[in-house]
């Protein structure tokens, strides 16, 4: 089977968020980029498990420039067979999805996996957009996936619980916690990743539907009001009269 996993870079979780150029650009100074955790830990590892059980190949795909190759190699070190980089700077989800869908269409993949969201823009958009471009079913927030021949059974997050759904190949799924267990790349994987094929293709869609015009940081929080642990009546009164939440 042919599995495609969408990989994006993301600033390390502990990154201090700041902006430059009159608050129009994310300040990348000193930012350490990692593979977006949902892409690496859940989507990629699930892809590897599927191929380990059923045979086939895992290809990663990324919209990004040469600087993104470090994160692509990390994904290869975890175990993907090869990688595709679409040579464009990712500007919005619409553009990323359109570029990926174009390449994915030619590749005839059986399953396309994405992480549930990136930890910078938190859009949760790319997977469903790819599915629409390719007219495929989409399962969002998958927490488990079992394959039986041509049919997959998935558990997915539903409002206040878990839903079980069944879908036939091919389809697109976004992966949340539970989908797989994180794998740490070992030395052999890291060495092998250096020589795995990384194909660069030129973008063909070249359009965005949205523009991030400027950024702002939230107003700083005022200091915490400490309450005597023996006076819970006071806390209740504050929540009622001051915060007006109960």
């Amino acid at each position, binding site marked *: 089977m042919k599995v495609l996993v969408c990989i994006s870079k993301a600033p390390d979780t502990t990154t201090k968020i700041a902006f430059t150029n009159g608050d129009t650009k994310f300040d990348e100074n000193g930012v350490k980029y990692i593979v977006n955790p949902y892409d690496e830990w859940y989507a990629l590892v699930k892809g590897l498990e599927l191929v380990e059980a059923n045979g086939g190949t895992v290809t990663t795909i990324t919209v990004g420039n040469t600087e993104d190759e470090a994160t692509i190699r990390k994904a290869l070190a975890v175990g993907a067979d090869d990688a595709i980089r679409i040579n464009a700077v990712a500007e919005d989800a619409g553009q990323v999805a359109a570029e990926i869908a174009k390449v994915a269409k030619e590749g005839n993949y059986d399953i396309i996996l994405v992480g549930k969201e990136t930890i910078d823009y938190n859009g949760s958009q790319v997977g469903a957009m790819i599915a*629409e471009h390719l007219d495929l079913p989409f399962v969002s927030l998958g927490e488990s996936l079992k394959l039986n021949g041509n049919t997959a059974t998935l558990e997915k997050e539903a409002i206040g619980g878990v839903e079980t759904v069944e879908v036939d190949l091919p389809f697109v799924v976004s992966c949340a916690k539970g989908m797989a267990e994180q794998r740490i790349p070992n030395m052999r994987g890291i060495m092998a990743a250096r020589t795995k094929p990384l194909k660069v293709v030129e973008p063909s869609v070249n359009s965005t539907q949205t523009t991030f015009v400027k950024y*702002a940081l939230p107003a700083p929080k005022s200091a915490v009001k400490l309450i005597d642990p023996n006076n819970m009546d006071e806390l*209740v009164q504050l929540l009622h009269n001051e915060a007006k939440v109960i």
Partner: protein
Amino acid sequence: MSILVYINSNGNKIAKNSFEAVTYAKKLGDVTAVTNGKADNAILADLGKYGASKVLVDRSFDGTDEQQITRMVATAAEKVGAETVVFSDDLVGKAVAPRLSVKMNAGLISSATGVPQGDGTVPVNVFSGKAFAFVKANTSKKIISLLPNSIPVEEVGGSASIEEFNGNAGDTRVRVKGINRPEGDIPLPEAELVVSAGRGLKGPENWGMIEDLAKALGAATACSRPVADADWRPHHEHVGQTGVAIRPNLYIAIGISGAIQHLAGVNGSKTIVVINTDKEAPFFKAADYGVVGDAFEVVPKLVEAVKKFKASN
């Protein structure tokens, strides 16, 4: 301006975040709501209170298959000449809005927290709530998906007229086999009040007092990640970056350190109360009210105080 708003009326119930979406849409223009399934007309007509003049309902299919809903909303948008389609950024909205964006070639602005500014940009949440961005759609048609609990619902109207229509929803290819939804509990993403506890509680046997507090307040319960990982609590209660992101009016964090990955899922809460033995716990920096103390002593007192307050109000 004609605005279309998608409503999830599954289970003959409309969630508060749908009323928020209608309130939001009303600030942009004339509102038509669209939904599918079997909800009673009386329940749908209620959308009028928040500003919808009409509700289009496609009774030919039930459920939340996003491909069917996408086709239905696109048909409705065409029918009413909608310039903007509004969704609630809930689990269904998150799956449908991007599909519709491709189908309608309409720029999607997701995680919106407010109405468009003078320059047409919409404020949205980015970096897991650590910053805002102002985003503009470059397309003539737009889709906005509103984060739950971003704006208060406002009653502005009366009753909406109901019109049955054919949304050309087509077939579903995602077959639902079952839903495991604990009965009686308040679904976490919809809850306005949340009581949450972490590893400081030492073990699952100590959750009784957390449930007592939640019950006294009418709140949902949540937990930190290690608590769910250790199976002290069910996984759908895990909040934070890898779990559910919530924005309740009140978040009470008990025995939770306030690690950045936990905060990423709860820092949109309006009011945060932290109860922790360690006065240096990072959570106090994000809190509005703090109690430095042992949960095993403080929580039972808080339960009593809440019960006393409820009895006299």
